[in-house]
């Protein structure tokens, strides 16, 4: 198959995967374009650093390409691929947690705000970041995934290979912990 056959961007994922399996560059290109943003957004939620997230996503696309023959075409591509991204991001986070460096602060949006408000916001973010990092790993991950791209608890559970009810319970626990910690932090912090 040619490497440069035009590929309709509206082909479904399975059709693109089939072509990419045969080395169709254009098909793989469409897959990358289709999943690049959600993949980086997902990795960022776990890692908190854009550059790290981009590295993980690049690795994940290559890993997915290597594993493409094992993908079951009858199943949806999105969770299969996002699970690759998530697992790699979680591994990177664990490795980073074991070998912390000085610049562990999460990137945040550069919101324009008056200096005093900016300081307060930064303090709040740092507090939340610390509280998040103190959560048990699964709760922390679920907290980070909740709200991502409209995922339901069932979909989060599918990504993490746990039951939806467990997701909801862990989320409940995580939110309760954050709320309790907030009560002890500077009179509420907000």
């Amino acid at each position, binding site marked *: 198959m040619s*490497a440069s056959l035009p590929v309709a961007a509206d082909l479904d994922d399975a059709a693109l995967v089939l072509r990419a399996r*045969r080395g*169709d560059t254009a098909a793989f290109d469409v897959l990358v374009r289709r999943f690049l943003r959600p993949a980086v957004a997902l990795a960022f939620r776990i890692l908190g650093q*854009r550059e790290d997230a981009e590295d993980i996503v690049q690795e994940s696309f290559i890993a997915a390409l290597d594993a493409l023959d094992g993908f079951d075409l009858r199943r949806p591509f999105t969770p299969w691929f996002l699970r690759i991204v998530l697992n790699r991001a979680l591994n990177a986070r664990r490795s980073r947690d074991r070998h912390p460096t000085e610049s562990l602060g999460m990137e945040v949006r*550069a919101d324009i705000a008056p200096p005093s408000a900016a300081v307060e916001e930064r303090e709040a973010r740092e507090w939340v970041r610390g509280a998040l990092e103190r959560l048990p790993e699964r709760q922390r991950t679920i907290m980070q995934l909740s709200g991502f791209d409209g995922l339901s608890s069932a979909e989060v559970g599918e990504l993490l290979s746990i039951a939806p009810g467990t997701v909801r319970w862990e*989320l409940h626990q995580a939110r309760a912990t954050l709320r309790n910690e907030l009560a002890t932090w500077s009179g509420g*912090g*907000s």
Partner: protein
Amino acid sequence: MIDKPTGPDLEPGTQNALDALLTLPEPTEPEWSALHASIMAAAGERLARRRMVAAPVRQAPTRIRRRRWLATALPLAAAAAVLIVIGRPRAPALTLDATAEALLADISDVEFSRLVAGHEDAVGLLLLAVQDENEGTP
């Protein structure tokens, strides 16, 4: 949001801080393009290798995936036609549904040729897979 979490709501300030922490600082279009190009460059060699290797050989099923592969690699009718030619194998993986069973019951050589047309590579591989299965190749 996740579907109505059961936990207590966070304070708005906490929720805002959390949202800020978890929201990707949107890269610029050139940054997206650079990342995309980097991924495609990294994938280039692998894609080229895939084009060079005959697809049916590359997709040769491992033993563990054979059952699934047999069910999806070929149109069911073609798979059934192959089974007629090679005879009913004793391979347990080769269980077909009722449609295939019906095809197995009565099919001519001409009909077989028509069914497998365009699927020769896959049929060849299926034959190899069946041979492996019958010979117990790991």
